[in-house]
């Protein structure tokens, strides 16, 4: 033990003299192993760790697959009566719950916060065995059709909106005109299954009866809604496939009855899907997590190769010290132990940094990737993380120690001393060094280029033209806080009054009674009256000011008028993409499209296409292949409760200010949401911004690692040549001679590396041509040049930097074999 401690003390003393080496190993291994621990923990959580619910292996989600006449999937969402029918049938499931997700304003709260709501049947929390902080979960007396207004709060809502008030139970909250009695608060550690959207946290739980679906939707088998979900514990004797066979005819038969009189659905059917809750929650995240792990493992391998090079250089540097140790009786085993002491210290320091970085990584994921990856809130430094950390430390410490001692020619060590350290000591052949340099350059070139490409793509998407402006535009959506919804006629004068007040605000430049394009469109079935062709474009209501406000050009025909809206004229404006779908020449003015009612809509105008980030870009290059997103606009109703406000430059309006304004007109109205278009745009670009930031960081990291790797191997090469350098200096070589010589000597290997990167790309192209083909345009040429310049600069730096300590000192320092 004492010997072990002494060895580690000596190793530490030796390392202290090489802060640059220690820092490089620490940063390289610390950062990459931190990322590895992060990725391993995430993969374990997503792929291996069971969901925190009892009987989670029997927990399934039933989905309503809408299939078109050509057997194509039209959507994966329930109709309201279809969901209720399935729930009431009690088929295949031992216990089941249904849910309707929404957003609502707690109007009784002082700040009238907008909260995520879930309207549920009582079985949900029973199935999940949800832990409670206060009170109880919903009971049979609050089941479907009981209309008993009670509420449960999430822990965070209780803390943030109600300051953790311990007397919260039996207090009441008002949502959409209904007063709910709070009966329970979920525990802090309750984990909600993310079925509707990754990262969405329900803040207030309410009974299913009170969901926001209108009477029409509750009866209609023609309306599907993504907000409706079904979850249940499958019967023990029923398998997943049996459940599908059992449920499909049950639901389809009822649906067919429901849509029998709607010709649009002729030939359509319902195919039920039954999937494990875990699979639904994971979605595409499983492949993202695995790709992340694969990427990080790649980084660790590069880092490992780089650090191996540094250890080779370090061993070369320590040759004389080891020769002395060998001369006084150290065996190969002793030398290995001494080296292991060094690598253990370095790996221990690295893993401590790695754990800090992993912890920070969890925080970053929870803050920024909560909407991309499920269950990230459960990420923490757990026994798996620590176990991996210990394993990684031991494996890498042994690996680097073994690698370093394998380089030592034990017999040659003695002759090293005999020749006073002059002119001998070559451990790795020149050819091996050249192969290492070439492979480093090839790998670095491929990785830097690939990262540049990803970065360029993400930046291009972020900067892609939208086809409309978002500057100074905000969207205001109103919330009606009463159960007795006003009729269309009743709401028109109220909305007119609200608009008058809004226009009178000094901050407001102009106003439109329609939502921003970023607030979304909805799919609508339309039939061309002329030929009965069916279309499903994205539809949106717009008033006469909409296109001017967002600066979306009207290419042909007319805009909506106030008269169109007042008289309820069935007029429609379509975009170029939809016009081309309807008629190849795009000349569709006057064409009539039916929405199913007796009076079809007449197309009066054509507007330019727009791009909604995350959906499509505008790329109409005039080619026949171009198919943009078909969009149609109808005149918005005068009673519409969504507005766009264009504010004067530098001005702002608060939610509270708008709330007061609404109350002055009609106290039943509150602000549902008020968001700037720029904020919505940033949210929609989140994944592209994340990609850009991630690739920029990765590009930087790869570049750093490539630099370290090249430096390591070139430094090692220079180290081995120090006596040769000394000899050349002794016979008159200047700094320039030596720098030129080292660059020339390495140029061949670098060139081979560049050729190797081309070969790697060619191999990648053969294997993944469909993914790579779109990238192969002349636009990649500047990136290729930039990559080559960067790698060349790194190589030049790596050639010069290790050399400088020899050429900037008198020749005797190189010849003596010590500094």
């Amino acid at each position, binding site marked *: 033990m004492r010997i072990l401690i002494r060895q580690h003390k000596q190793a530490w003393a030796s390392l202290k003299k090489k802060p640059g080496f220690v820092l490089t190993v620490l940063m390289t291994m610390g950062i990459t192993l931190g990322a590895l621990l992060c990725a391993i923990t995430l993969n374990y959580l997503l792929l291996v760790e069971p969901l925190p619910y009892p009987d989670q292996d029997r927990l399934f989600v039933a989905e309503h697959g809408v299939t078109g006449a050509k057997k194509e999937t039209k959507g994966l969402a329930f109709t309201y009566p279809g969901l209720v029918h399935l729930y009431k049938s009690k088929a295949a499931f031992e216990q089941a719950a249904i849910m309707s997700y929404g957003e609502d304003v707690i109007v009784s709260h002082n700040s009238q916060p907008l909260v995520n709501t879930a309207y549920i049947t009582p079985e949900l929390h029973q199935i999940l065995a949800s832990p409670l902080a206060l009170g109880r979960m919903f009971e049979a007396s609050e089941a479907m059709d009981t209309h008993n207004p009670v509420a449960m709060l999430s822990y965070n809502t209780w803390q943030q909106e109600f300051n953790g008030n311990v007397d919260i139970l039996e207090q009441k909250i008002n949502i959409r005109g209904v007063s709910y009695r709070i009966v329970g608060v979920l525990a802090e550690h309750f984990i909600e299954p993310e079925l509707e959207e990754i990262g969405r946290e329900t803040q207030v739980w309410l009974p299913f009866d009170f969901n926001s679906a209108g009477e029409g939707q509750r009866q209609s088998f023609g309306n599907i809604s993504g907000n409706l979900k079904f979850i249940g514990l499958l019967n023990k004797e029923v398998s997943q496939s049996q459940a599908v066979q059992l449920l499909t005819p049950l639901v389809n038969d009822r649906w067919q009855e429901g849509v029998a009189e709607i010709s649009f659905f002729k030939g359509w059917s319902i195919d039920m899907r039954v999937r494990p809750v875990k699979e639904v929650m994971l979605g595409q995240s499983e492949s993202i997590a695995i790709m992340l792990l694969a990427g990080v493992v790649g980084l660790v391998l590069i880092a490992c190769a780089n650090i191996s090079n540094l250890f080779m250089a370090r061993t070369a540097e320590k040759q004389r010290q080891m020769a002395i140790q060998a001369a006084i009786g150290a065996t190969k085993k002793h030398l290995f132990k001494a080296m292991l002491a060094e690598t253990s210290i370095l790996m221990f320091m690295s893993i401590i940094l790695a754990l800090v970085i992993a912890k920070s990584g969890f925080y970053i994921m929870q803050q920024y990737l909560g909407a991309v990856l499920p269950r990230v809130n459960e990420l923490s430094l757990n026994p798996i993380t620590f176990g991996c950390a210990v394993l990684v430390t031991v494996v890498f410490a042994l690996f680097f120690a073994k690698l370093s001692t394998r380089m030592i020619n034990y017999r040659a060590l003695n002759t090293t001393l005999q*020749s006073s350290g002059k002119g001998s000591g070559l451990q790795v052949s020149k050819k091996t060094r050249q192969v290492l340099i070439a492979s480093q350059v090839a790998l670095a070139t491929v990785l830097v280029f690939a990262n540049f490409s990803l970065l360029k793509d993400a930046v291009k998407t972020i900067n892609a033209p939208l086809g409309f402006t978002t500057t100074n535009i905000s969207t205001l959506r109103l919330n009606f806080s009463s159960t007795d919804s006003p009729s269309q006629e009743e709401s028109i004068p109220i909305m007119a009054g609200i608009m008058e007040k809004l226009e009178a605000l000094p901050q407001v430049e102009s106003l439109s009674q329609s939502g921003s394009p970023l607030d979304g469109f909805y799919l609508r079935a339309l039939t061309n009256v002329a030929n009965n062709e069916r279309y499903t474009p994205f539809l949106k209501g717009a008033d006469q000011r909409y296109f001017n406000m967002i600066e979306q050009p009207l290419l042909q025909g007319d805009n909506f008028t106030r008269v169109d809206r007042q008289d309820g004229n069935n007029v429609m404006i379509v975009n170029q993409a939809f016009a081309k779908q309807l008629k190849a020449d795009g000349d569709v003015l006057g064409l009539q499209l039916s929405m199913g009612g007796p009076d079809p809509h007449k197309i009066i105008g054509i507007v330019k296409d727009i791009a909604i980030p995350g959906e499509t870009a505008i790329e109409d290059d005039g080619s026949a292949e171009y198919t943009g997103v078909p969009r149609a606009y109808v005149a918005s109703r005068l009673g519409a409760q969504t507005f766009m406000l264009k504010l004067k430059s530098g001005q702002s309006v608060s939610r509270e200010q708008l709330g007061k304004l609404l109350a002055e007109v009609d106290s039943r109205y509150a602000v549902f949401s008020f968001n700037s278009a720029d904020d919505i745009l940033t949210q929609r670009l989140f994944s592209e911004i994340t990609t850009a930031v991630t690739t920029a960081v990765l590009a930087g990291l790869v570049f750093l690692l490539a630099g370290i790797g090249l430096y390591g191997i070139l430094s090692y090469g220079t180290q081995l040549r120090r006596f*040769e350098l000394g000899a050349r200096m002794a*016979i008159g070589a*200047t700094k320039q*001679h030596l720098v030129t010589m080292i660059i020339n000597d390495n140029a061949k290997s670098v060139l081979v590396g560049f050729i190797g990167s081309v070969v790697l790309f060619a191999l990648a192209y053969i294997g993944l041509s469909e993914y790579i083909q779109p990238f192969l345009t002349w636009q990649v040429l500047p990136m290729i040049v930039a990559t080559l310049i960067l790698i060349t600069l790194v190589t030049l730096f790596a050639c010069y930097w290790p050399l400088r300590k020899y050429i900037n*000192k*008198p*020749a*005797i320092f190189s010849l003596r074999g010590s500094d």
Partner: protein
Amino acid sequence: MTDIKIEMKNIGKVFETDDVETHALKDVDIVIRAGEYVSISGPSGCGKSTLLSLLGLLDESTSGSYVIEGHDVSHLSLDEAAHIRNEKIGFVFQSFNLIDEISVFDNVALPLQYKKEIPTDEFIKERVEACLKMVEMSHRADHKPNQLSGGQQQRIAIARALVADPAILLVDEPTGNLDSQSGDTVMAVLAELNKNGTTICMVTHDARYADMAKIQLKLLDGQIVNDEALKVAV
């Protein structure tokens, strides 16, 4: 006094570590004239190698002045020192310091490639062959150094030192890594060169070889203890 090749006055060299100052050389005065054969000898640690490093501009002195063929070389930059070494000094090391990866011919030609004006290929060929002939190694021109014996490698090192026609040949323990037969051969080569007019300054701890020099300097604790060279100069 144009035949004075080297003149050192009051040369001192101090090595400083964290808290220790070591005076390797103290007030050393040396004059070496054209055609002289000078040996520097003394016990281990007396400063022989340090003195030779200073003579060869491989290291910088802490004090004193140093003149080679009338040029003051006391305070030169590293590149200026490299040029002077290339033009005026030929170095022969104890461990040869040949470059294993290039041929004997290329090793010998190396100093010519570091000249300010690189000579023509014909000149290089002629000069290298002449030097190899002087050390009787012409037949090994295409070999790699590691294919030769120690004595042969040292003769190649001498040829390399001579190729740029230096003012003086500085030789550091030329027989230190050789058996006695090879050592005798190398010493014979050096004696022959001196006989033909080459100025030589050699460090050795072998009294037998030191005696072969016409002028023998003895160093003790960093100081010259006989002043034969100085006397000759005066």
